[in-house]
């Protein structure tokens, strides 16, 4: 008998191997809460299967859970959830000056923790990938002071299934955070971003700077435009400018035109007055780079390059706007965020230009610069811009 059992069990283990992931959908619940200044609204989706194991739902034991059976167990479900879910709010003390809140990290501040009772509104049903869930809508009547953090303690089902997870999203003023609750981290504190205007401005300026440095296409456009700034076209020949002043003046005009143009369109797009499809915008940006680079090799426009800069700057502004919309303008501080982002972009550009200008000025006499950098560099840019154009037009990835 023992031999048989050991073989049988051996077999179970071989086959329970399920040699690669099949239906790995273990047990999850989904908790979504939206924190507003006076109250918290929430929704928790719980699988009927899990509730069946925990408290029993199939009252007539026929292997199916009907709406009638579920309704009759609503009170028991509420009791189960309320005994295992706790949401504490942390209230920020009112007297905290803007300056000190900037220097003291948000998570270090001590607030007052209050537990307000959860009020269950109703229960609906929803179908997720692994079956039917009950959807419990609840509210918490909160406080008059602004909330700086919430601490969620989640204990559902861990005693019956340690692989159960509570997947949670907390939204406050348009910003969402996620948290995963498991038996090893069943209580988590989530700081809600209470940004002072200064913090908003600085963070968006930072985003602007970051975007210039990470958005290779804008830099490339600018540099391609600036390449011939220290040169002069005369009688079909490329000549160097004699002194620094014309070069500096040239570059200033170009950069200012670009800046003005993209600021305008960025603002118009960000406040929603103009919307352009992003595929078109991104492709046009690639085209702009292409044209400018080609112009460096076969000059068509030789004077008043700032005109180019202005015209294409309008399009680049729409490109910036899409980045800004991905970040999400905080309601109530939109103007500040917009200005901050714009100034960040400007600052980034300024850094690049101030690095480029002396370098190109000192190198302008060299053959290397006039021919190699200008021509070979432009060819490389043309190739890259063409690839980008194809990628963006047809929405494929080549590199």
């Amino acid at each position, binding site marked *: 008998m023992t031999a048989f059992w050991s073989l049988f069990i051996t*077999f179970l283990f071989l086959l329970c191997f399920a040699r690669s*992931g099949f239906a790995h959908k273990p047990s999850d619940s989904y908790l979504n809460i939206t924190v507003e200044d006076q109250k918290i609204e929430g929704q928790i989706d719980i699988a009927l299967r899990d509730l069946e194991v925990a408290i029993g739902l199939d009252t007539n034991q026929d292997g199916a859970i009907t709406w009638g059976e579920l309704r009759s167990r609503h009170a028991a479900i509420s009791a189960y959830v309320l005994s295992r879910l706790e949401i504490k709010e942390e209230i920020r003390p009112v007297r905290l000056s803007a300056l000190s809140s900037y220097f003291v990290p948000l998570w270090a501040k001590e607030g007052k923790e209050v537990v307000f009772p959860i009020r269950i509104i109703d229960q609906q049903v929803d179908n997720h990938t692994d079956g039917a869930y009950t959807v419990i809508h609840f509210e918490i009547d909160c406080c008059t002071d602004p909330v700086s953090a919430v601490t969620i303690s989640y204990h559902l089902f861990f005693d019956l299934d340690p692989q159960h997870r509570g997947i949670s999203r907390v939204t406050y003023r348009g910003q969402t955070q996620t948290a995963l609750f498991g038996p090893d981290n069943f209580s988590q504190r989530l700081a809600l971003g209470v940004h002072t205007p200064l913090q908003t401005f600085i963070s968006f300026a930072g985003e602007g700077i970051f975007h210039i440095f990470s958005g290779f296409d804008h830099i490339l456009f600018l540099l391609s435009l600036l390449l011939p700034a220290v040169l002069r076209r005369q009688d079909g020949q490329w000549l160097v400018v004699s002194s620094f002043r014309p070069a500096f003046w040239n570059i200033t005009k170009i950069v200012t035109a670009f800046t003005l143009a993209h600021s305008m369109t960025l603002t118009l797009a960000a406040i929603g007055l103009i919307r352009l499809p992003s595929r078109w915008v991104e492709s046009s940006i690639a085209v702009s780079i292409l044209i400018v680079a080609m112009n460096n090799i076969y000059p068509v426009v030789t004077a008043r390059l700032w005109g180019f800069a202005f015209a294409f700057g309008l399009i680049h502004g729409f490109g910036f706007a899409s980045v800004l919309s991905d970040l999400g303008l905080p309601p109530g501080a939109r103007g500040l965020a917009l200005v901050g982002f714009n100034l960040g972009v400007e600052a980034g550009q300024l850094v690049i230009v101030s690095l480029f200008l002396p370098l190109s000025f000192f190198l302008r006499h060299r053959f290397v610069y006039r021919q190699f950098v200008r021509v070979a560099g432009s060819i490389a840019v043309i190739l890259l811009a063409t690839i980008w154009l194809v990628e963006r037009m047809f929405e494929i990835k080549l590199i």
Partner: protein
Amino acid sequence: MSITRTAWVVLVVSVFSGWLHWVEASPFTPTDDAQVLERLPFRPSDPAARQLREWRAEWMSSPDRFDLAARLARGYIEQGRRNADPRYNGYAEATLTRWWKSPNPPTALLVLRATLSQSRHDFNGALADLTQVLKRDPDDPQAWVTQALILQVQGEYQKSKESCFRLQRLSTTLVTAACLAGAGSLSGQAEKSFDLLKKMVDQYSPPILGGVRGGNAEEQLWARTLLAEIAARRGMPAAAEDQFRQAFLLKIHDPYLLGAYADFLLDQGRAKEVLPLLADEMRADGLLLRLTLAEQTVHADSFSQHRDALRDRFAASRLRGDRVHQREESRFTLWLLHQPQEALKLAEENWKVQREPWDARVLLEAAQAANNHAAAKTVLDWMAKTKIEDVTLTKLKTELEK
């Protein structure tokens, strides 16, 4: 408007809003008390359910008895395997909580913990537990065979064979042969492994009567499935078909067998046959994937619905932080979403954890589609080292090396 036109409008609007509702999948309040919202895995009167309930009741009356807990845990694990339902692994783990974190747990707990770890693809954790088990009890066949199989998944064929050899005096010849054949077929001895195992398992089942004569049906299922896979890898579709047929004759519902056969059918250009095979198997993500791949080929109506369902399931998995699905997700991303770069990333992550022929295949296919021959190099080197015999992998290798 005439009555017929009104009727049409009403019909169209209701169909559209019904579709919209389904697409939206937002919470709803049912109106009919008799509406069935969820069908449980089995009726409470089902013998398996009854058995588990009995065992659970016994255990709960004496929760300190480890043997009762272990029996219940094994029952849950077996049920989970049969249904391809990982919730049971969670229930099994809950049963063992009392002993789970203890510094000197019972040997049987280590074996169960290793089994649950490998279900989560924590192979190193499982091997650590099994090493401890075998130190205490070098004659534990379950531990040896589980260790052998994990090492095989990790691509450590020599070490796997060593574990298989230990089964010779501890288990049946069929189990030993299947263990060795698995590793052998992937390290340059495919023909020998096939012939030996076939001889062994043919002793048991009479093809004519379709019944099972002697021996353990589960062991035969394992052997037949393995033989079918070896034959498919060797490029012998007739032999593979025959072994699959014999496996199905055993009348055991096995998700792994269904998946392997579906893959075989897809490779043979018989996608149409996959649809009836997997029509009722949509709860298992891996089987839904094969079904959807077949539906794409034959342009079935439910294709886009199933593809979206798969996308949701992989997203749900990611939300929880589970990474057990990367092989399937890579296949999905490449063949159903047509995103080779993303598929390659997933395949590379997957390769860090497991190295079965399919893991090599998804990486090579993704590398080929993404035109990234450098990424394929690790797999190609591994193939040369292990001397793996697999016609699909060889074909990909040739194409990539051009």
